């Protein structure tokens, strides 16, 4: 018979109507699945009692697919078909993948998302991730005794549209119904029950196997709001292992090691790192393929010293995120530690020093994200009907905007806006009789489009012909709770519409986001100058265009001298436009305006005369 769980008062499910929902932490190094049972979030373990599933997939020649611990064991013998850290490749193109040469995989660059050639054919990161999700899903169904209603899957706060979409696709492929993608730091805050705290601002320091994320969450009346996020996509516990590994090579004077030796020593380095959490020193012993023996001891102090620069790398995003949120370290009410790497004592010490308080570490840092996701899944599946149903608000990591004339960025949704969000802005036509408009959706903080990332392009056709500036085109940006963007444009008088769902083949990498943010700050001065120049250039082109048009139409109103003066002013302005001094261009525009004052007045008189011709005065409505 089915086994029952204890429900909250008055909330026993009807028979056959249990809504089984799970939270999944799809990690770079390890993945977990959790659920709320008997009112408590718990991680679900496999037959051997292990909660963590190594995020490793091995493809066998006979069609079998192995996931987790057994696959991990084969990493040394069958590296090409044993895929580790596939999360790093999710939604990314080959050029986004750092250190391609240091991975053993056979990459296929087919444009769009990177693919890996295995013994079972070419696989996308989405398919590989789906294998991990399938195992977790099956484990959950076996543990809960029924089919799952849905799952909440966590993603790094920095995941862009393409990476989030790839994660959703992987879940779909694994047969899971995604209730919501949830940012990992937000899940951690939920796990710590910070939603029960009265009010306050919290920092989530997440140093996982391969990624570092820092988020500032604000809680008020049980509502979460992510004030700001920052991080480093290429920093994690693996880098600490690697640093220790390099130290071993150096100490033992090993010439370029064979790949077998590398793997063995890297594993030993990781074990030593884990030992150093509890003890002051750790041995590193290994026998190399040459028969040579490595026999070293590393102390906690030595390890702290050799990895100090990695910890320092987490400090820059911490300062930046506080600046973004306009806060000082002492404004932070609590600091949550997430990710196995935060077990390292010198990491905890550095964080405690920075914020001037001891971080929260009482939940297992490997499990907090999955536990929080489970709690959220339980709410979304409708298992909690009481009044404490809360909202989770996340933010977009980089501003979203449109390209406007002259290659300038018009930001429509500013960075760190809370999700879901809808923002609209009106644009207009640039030329008389313009019937189509091209939209270029970009993401980034820089003023010029060429410095931002292109997300999508689409066109709005069928705008009724009108004079320049008369059309009203409303462009709406909508970002859903999963962080996926759709953009639509609508001409208000005719109602013609066009839209695009932004699903780029691959989007920004976290490194790029971090880099772009940095550039945005560094180039504020340059950008302002470039923007001012482009604005003046666009204005100059518009004035030249309008004047030339007027000369063609009403040139007869001018005598030869007057005409020559205007043409000279146009030529002068055309010359100035090619320069790089916005003030000079502005002066040129003003000069042309003065030169055409009289012409404009005559044209006005002329058009009034022609409008009035043939009418009696009393027919004209004033």
């Amino acid at each position, binding site marked *: *018979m089915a086994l029952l*769980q204890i429900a909250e008062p008055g909330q026993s499910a009807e028979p056959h109507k249990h809504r089984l929902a799970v939270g999944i932490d799809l990690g770079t190094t390890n993945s977990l699945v959790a659920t709320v049972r008997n009112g408590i979030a718990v991680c679900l373990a496999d*037959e051997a009692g292990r909660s963590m599933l190594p995020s490793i997939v091995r493809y066998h020649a006979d069609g079998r697919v192995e996931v987790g611990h057994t696959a991990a064991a084969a990493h040394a013998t069958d590296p090409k078909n044993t895929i580790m850290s596939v999360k790093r490749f999710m939604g990314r193109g080959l050029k986004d993948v750092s250190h391609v040469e240091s991975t053993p995989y056979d990459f296929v660059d087919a444009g769009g998302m990177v693919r890996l050639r295995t013994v079972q054919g070419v696989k996308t990161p989405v398919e590989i991730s789906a294998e991990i999700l399938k195992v977790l899903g099956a484990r959950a169904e076996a543990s809960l005794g029924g089919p799952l209603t849905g799952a909440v899957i966590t993603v790094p706060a920095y995941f862009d549209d393409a990476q989030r979409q790839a994660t959703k696709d992987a879940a779909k492929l694994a047969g899971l119904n995604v209730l919501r993608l949830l940012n990992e730091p937000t899940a951690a805050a939920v796990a710590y029950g910070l939603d029960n705290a009265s009010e306050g601002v919290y920092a989530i320091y997440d140093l996982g196997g391969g990624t570092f994320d820092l988020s500032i969450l604000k809680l008020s009346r049980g509502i979460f709001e992510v004030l700001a996020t920052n991080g480093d996509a290429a920093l994690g516990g693996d880098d600490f292992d690697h640093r220790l590994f390099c130290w071993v090579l150096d100490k033992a004077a090993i010439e370029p090691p064979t790949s077998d030796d590398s793997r063995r020593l890297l594993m030993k380095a990781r074990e030593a790192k884990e030992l150093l959490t509890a003890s002051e020193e750790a041995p590193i012993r290994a026998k190399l393929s040459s028969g040579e023996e490595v026999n070293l001891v590393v102390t906690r102090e030595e390890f702290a010293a050799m990895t100090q620069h990695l910890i320092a790398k987490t400090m820059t995003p911490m300062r930046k995120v506080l600046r973004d949120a306009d806060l000082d370290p002492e404004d932070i009410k609590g600091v949550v530690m997430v990710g196995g790497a935060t077990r390292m004592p010198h990491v905890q010490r550095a964080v405690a020093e920075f914020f001037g308080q001891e971080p929260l570490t009482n939940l297992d840092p490997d499990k907090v994200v999955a536990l929080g996701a489970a709690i959220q899944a339980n709410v979304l599946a409708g298992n909690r009907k009481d009044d404490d149903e809360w909202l989770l608000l996340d933010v977009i990591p980089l501003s979203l905007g449109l390209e406007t004339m002259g290659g300038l960025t018009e930001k429509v949704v500013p960075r760190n806006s809370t999700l879901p969000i809808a923002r609209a802005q009106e644009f207009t036509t640039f030329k008389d009789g313009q019937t189509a408009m091209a939209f270029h959706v970009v993401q980034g903080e820089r003023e010029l489009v060429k410095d931002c990332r292109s997300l999508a392009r689409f066109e709005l056709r069928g705008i009724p012909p009108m004079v320049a500036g008369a059309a009203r085109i409303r462009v709406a940006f909508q970002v859903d709770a999963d962080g996926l963007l759709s953009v639509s444009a609508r001409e208000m008088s005719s109602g013609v519409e066009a839209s695009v769902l932004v699903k780029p083949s691959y989007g920004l990498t976290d490194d790029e986001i971090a880099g772009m943010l940095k550039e945005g700050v560094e180039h504020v001065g340059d950008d302002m100058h470039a923007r001012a120049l482009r604005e003046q250039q666009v204005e100059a082109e518009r004035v030249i265009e309008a004047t030339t048009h007027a000369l063609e139409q009403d040139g007869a109103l001018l005598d030869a001298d007057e005409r020559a003066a205007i043409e000279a002013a146009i030529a002068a302005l055309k010359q100035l436009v090619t320069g790089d001094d916005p003030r000079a261009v502005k002066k040129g525009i003003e000069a042309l305006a003065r030169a055409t004052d009289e012409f404009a007045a005559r044209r006005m008189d002329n058009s009034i005369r022609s409008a009035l011709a043939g009418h009696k005065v009393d027919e004209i409505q004033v």
Partner: protein
Amino acid sequence: MSVTLSTNAAKHVSEFMAKRGKGVGIRLGVKTSGCSGMAYRLEFVDEMHDEDLIFESHGVKVIVDPQSLAYLDGTELDFVREGLNEGFKFNNPNVKDACGCGESFNV
């Protein structure tokens, strides 16, 4: 008349109650629904009703309403593990037949 918990069930209930941080005990009950007529209820109790009957089993308060007791008399609630799955099971001597899944039964 009585309703009891197995030692294992009592141990787990105490644990869950401690982690939940509130509540006076658990409620066992039946309601009319499901494919075989009746279904079990198993819930935490924060507030008791006047007519509720209270049984104490291995230090845990088991609360049952009088209507349900007629169907539950003699029941022992057990905590079992079946493969990866674990949870509570009603060992109810009154049950004549149950639906395949056992979530719904008839007396």
